[in-house]
């Protein structure tokens, strides 16, 4: 027996009121002026009104009426009143995380997802809710969603249950859903308010908790005491076996054509026994040959490197597939963007002078597309251009294939006019003093379209001719050099390269000497810089303040100038270990590949903000997100924020392309540029480790309980409120008191009449 509203017992203090009225009430007697009061004799006892307790029986009855009223308002509840389920409030929290898609055997033996079992158990629970109890439904996935507020009927709650499906997201919103449920029933006055969480009790869902949500739970428990029951129902029917891919990523820098792409896959075994699985890779829609077999001990994970050669440029998706027998199919596949960059084509133009030309009989040399090495040169002169050519792709020069992903073509300046410039990514003018005006115009167009030009001023350069032609603008043509140069200077001792606190992006990694020590570089010969062009900036300086490198934007591209050559007698640059890395970075920088973007791999149903500042998305205000799925694409318009970002609300698992808004809505339309975005289920959902009641008590309070779905019946309280009996008794006592009061009044009146008659 208990009281649903014990605070109403404060009303028992009103019992003192009738006693006060009966005992010590001070009547306000009328004062009557009277001339013959001396005949009344105040000393006589009968003249004095003595307060005394009169009609004790009536007083007791009135007290009993008040007491019954207080008891009725306090809502006495007893299990002896009824054997039916007691009116109670039920808030159902359904776990909709990815792990609830796991298949389990239902009561009829069929294998169904756990979320279906949870719905079935929820419906059974709703059948036991009696008015005035109310029920509500909350879906707990990545976030907590209130599907049905507390209401007196169960029909809306049942309808809300039918809308619940498993998702790809995590169960991080479970604690928040519990807090929301506790707040819904806080203050309710039924005998019991239950927050029933139908979940698979995986511990990862309870590891993400917010202090604010825990505080809400604590406040509700403190306010309601034993009236609030927090019950976690395990619908998983025991431990589950699961092997899943936790993560997959490309190792190293993005591969280039001819490279081997390494996809590193991490696989976790959260079962209780050893397991075997097979891992294979799919790039685009092509399954890659070969697969890897994995053996995992229980509770362990493994990192598997799956390698695949790439022979063509590609912008698509790669998928790591895990072939295994487990209950959760969602985590057996992991998607990631797969981009294979094309080789960087560099055209090295030398002046043809003995100082710069690689050899008097040099021919335009290109790397064979098949990657086969060209025969080595017989000329022993090692010019700066030759050194540059060697260092950009030493593997090719040594007959070992592509190597760095840079192909070089070396020509003399006189052959430049006959070269189609558009197929190159970078043109290097090595010691080229002058070029015909049409060629210069072609070079300007080349740069303005977004390509780059590197001018190396070594010992063979004629500064006067250079300044008159390349470094100066003619007509509408802008100067192609960031600076006018002067004579070559010799430095003894040689100068060093100065690394500032905010170095150029090319030099940024060398702040860590382990990445490369710039301090060992010595330069003995430099070209003097007489003036800089408008918009040019010095990006590299020597120890004496001499500008060593300048660059200048021109249209969509840029022009860079080095005031030193790579000849061996110009310093030790070409002999240093840092020289190749420096040159590769310079080529990456000038071809726009220095900054590599991290592949867009997102977690399902989790919001994300993407940077869309690449030039391909310039001059547009919104982008379109298309799902590339076997089910068919669905497009979503995304406005570009002021900071060149787009906000992605939680997306279900799948492969998406982010592109400019298509001119037509033809599905499968090819886009000139599209960014690949892969969305995968939350890897924490692959961990099948369950939590226990002991682990939950410190988090959710000591009153939390864990039960199996089949045992939930014992948590339904039975009984009822005794207000009907109390009201009946109240009516009887009140009537009795009224009858007695009437009888006493009549007797008193009769006495008065008799006294008056005398």
């Amino acid at each position, binding site marked *: 027996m208990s009281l649903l509203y014990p605070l109403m017992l404060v009303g028992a203090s009103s019992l003192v009121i009738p006693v006060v009225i009966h005992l010590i009430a001070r009547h306000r007697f009328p004062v009557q002026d009277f001339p013959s009061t001396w005949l*009344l004799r*105040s000393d006589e006892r009968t003249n004095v009104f003595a307060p005394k307790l009169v009609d004790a029986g009536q007083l007791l009855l009135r007290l009993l009426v008040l007491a019954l009223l207080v008891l009725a308002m306090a809502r006495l509840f007893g299990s002896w009143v009824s054997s039916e389920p007691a009116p109670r409030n039920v808030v159902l929290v359904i776990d909709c995380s990815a792990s609830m898609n796991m298949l389990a055997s239902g009561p009829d033996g069929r294998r169904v997802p756990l979320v279906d079992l949870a719905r079935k158990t929820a419906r059974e629970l709703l059948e036991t809710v009696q008015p005035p109890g109310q029920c509500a439904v909350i879906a707990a996935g990545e976030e907590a969603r209130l599907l049905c507020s507390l209401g007196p009927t169960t029909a809306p709650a049942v309808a809300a249950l039918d809308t619940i499906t498993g998702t790809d997201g995590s169960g991080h919103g479970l604690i928040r859903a519990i807090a929301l449920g506790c707040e819904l029933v806080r203050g309710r006055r039924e005998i019991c308010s239950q927050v029933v969480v139908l979940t698979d009790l995986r511990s990862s869902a309870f590891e993400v908790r917010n202090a604010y949500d825990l505080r809400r739970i604590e406040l509700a428990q403190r306010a309601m005491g034993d009236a609030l029951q927090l019950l976690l129902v395990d619908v998983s029917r025991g431990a589950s076996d699961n092997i899943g891919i936790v993560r997959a990523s490309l190792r190293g820098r993005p591969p280039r054509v001819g490279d081997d792409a390494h996809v590193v896959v991490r696989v976790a075994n959260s079962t209780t026994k050893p397991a075997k699985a097979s891992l294979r890779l799919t790039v685009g829609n092509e399954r890659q040959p070969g697969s890897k077999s994995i053996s995992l001990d229980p509770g362990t994970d493994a990192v598997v490197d799956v390698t695949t050669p790439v022979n063509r440029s590609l912008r698509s998706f790669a998928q790591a597939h895990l072939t295994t027998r487990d209950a959760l199919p969602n985590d057996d596949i992991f998607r990631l963007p797969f981009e294979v960059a094309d080789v960087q084509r560099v055209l090295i133009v030398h002046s043809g002078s003995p100082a710069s030309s690689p050899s008097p009989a040099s021919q335009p040399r290109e790397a064979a597309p098949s990657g086969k090495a060209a025969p080595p040169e017989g000329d022993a002169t090692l010019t700066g251009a030759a050194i540059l050519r060697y260092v950009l792709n030493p593997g090719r020069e040594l007959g070992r294939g592509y190597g760095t992903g840079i192909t070089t073509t070396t020509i003399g300046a006189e052959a430049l006019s006959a070269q189609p410039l558009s197929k190159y990514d970078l043109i290097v003018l090595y010691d080229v003093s002058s070029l015909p005006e049409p060629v210069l115009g072609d070079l300007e167009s080349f740069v303005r379209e977004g390509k780059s030009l590197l001018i190396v001023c070594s010992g063979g350069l004629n500064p006067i001719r250079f300044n008159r032609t390349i470094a100066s603008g003619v007509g509408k043509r802008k100067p192609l050099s960031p600076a006018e140069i002067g004579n070559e200077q010799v430095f003894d001792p040689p100068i060093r390269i100065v690394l500032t606190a905010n170095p150029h992006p090319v030099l940024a990694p060398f702040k860590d000497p382990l990445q490369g020590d710039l301090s060992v570089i010595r330069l003995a010969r430099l070209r003097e810089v007489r003036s800089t062009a408008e918009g040019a900036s010095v990006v590299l300086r020597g120890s004496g303040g001499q500008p060593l490198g300048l660059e200048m934007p021109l249209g969509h591209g840029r022009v860079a100038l080095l005031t030193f050559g790579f000849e061996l007698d110009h310093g030790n640059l070409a002999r240093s270990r840092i020289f190749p890395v420096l040159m590769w970075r310079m080529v990456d920088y000038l071809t726009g590949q220095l900054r590599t973007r991290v592949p867009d791999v997102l977690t399902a149903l989790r919001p994300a903000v993407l940077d869309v500042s690449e030039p391909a998305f310039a001059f547009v205000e919104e982008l379109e997100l298309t799902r590339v799925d076997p089910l068919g694409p669905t497009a979503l318009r995304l406005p570009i924020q002021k900071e060149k970002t787009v906000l992605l609300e939680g997306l279900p698992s799948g492969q998406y392309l982010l592109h400019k808004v298509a001119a037509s809505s033809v599905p499968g339309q090819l886009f000139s540029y599209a960014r690949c975005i892969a969305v995968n289920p939350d890897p924490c959902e692959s961990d099948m480790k369950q939590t226990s009641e002991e682990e939950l008590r410190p988090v959710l309070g000591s009153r939390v309980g864990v039960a199996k779905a089949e045992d939930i019946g014992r948590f339904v309280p039975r009984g009822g409120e005794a207000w009907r009996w109390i009201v009946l008794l109240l009516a009887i006592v009140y009537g009795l008191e009224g009858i007695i009061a009437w009888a006493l009044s009549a007797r008193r009146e009769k006495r008065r009449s008799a006294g008056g008659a005398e």
Partner: protein
Amino acid sequence: MSAIPGMRFLDARILRSISRIEIKARLLVEGMYASRHRCPFYGYSVEFVDHREYTAGDEPRTIDWKMLARTERYYVKRFEMESNMNVVCLLDASASMGYPRADAGRLSKIEYGCYLAASLAYLAVRQQDSPGLVTFDRDVRDFIPPKQGQRQLYTILGKLEALSAAAETDLCHVLKALSQRLTRRGIVILLSDCYGEPERVTDGVRHMAARGHDVVVFQILDHDEIAFPFQALTSFRDLETGAQVMSDPLVQRRLYLERLDRFVRGVRGGCSQAGADYRLIKTTDPIEVVLRDYLLYRRARAR
């Protein structure tokens, strides 16, 4: 609103009743006074004043036969001495006479006494007697010596108009003092509730009667004092002393009435022993009825 102060105490209705009664009463009174005040000298006053019409009850020897022969109507002779009688009203103006308050819907005892005093003064003036007025509480407050004339009536009325009930009363002391001041024998009419010990009240009356005055005691009581109609528990506050007595009337009523009866009997008996006339008057009794009944009683007793 009368221009002359106190004229309200000469209520037209009462005067009409008194006039009829006066005619009768006057005759009665005159007859009474004439019979009451038999001149110690044989015959009547030597100075003839005037005639007045004969009314039943007048002595035949006073009839002027010559006037009868002349006018064929009966007239009696009036002599100066028989109309020169003092009629002094002693009006109790203590606080107890102020009950009930003006909002009670009936006359207070002092107002009733004022009406009585005014009516008696009017009668006296019409009878060519000398009315006087004494108001008192614990001492004599106002003393208007008896005098003849209409102006005396106005003086008395003016004093009655300005009268208010206040202070305590000491009837015995006042009567004793007045018995010394009223040297000429006449009628002394006491208008009071006579509250006090009956022995002391009758002692004062006895003093007054012993001086040769014809004392008449009109004990004026209010209906509430006589019937004690109160029901609820009440705190009774004395009008003179201010003392309060909380009492349950339903319980106290019987005892109160017994004590009241004992008191009234005591006063009546004392007055009777002192040779004074006594009347218990309720303020709800019509004034003209009271006067008429008493005067008839006096006339009947005088025969």
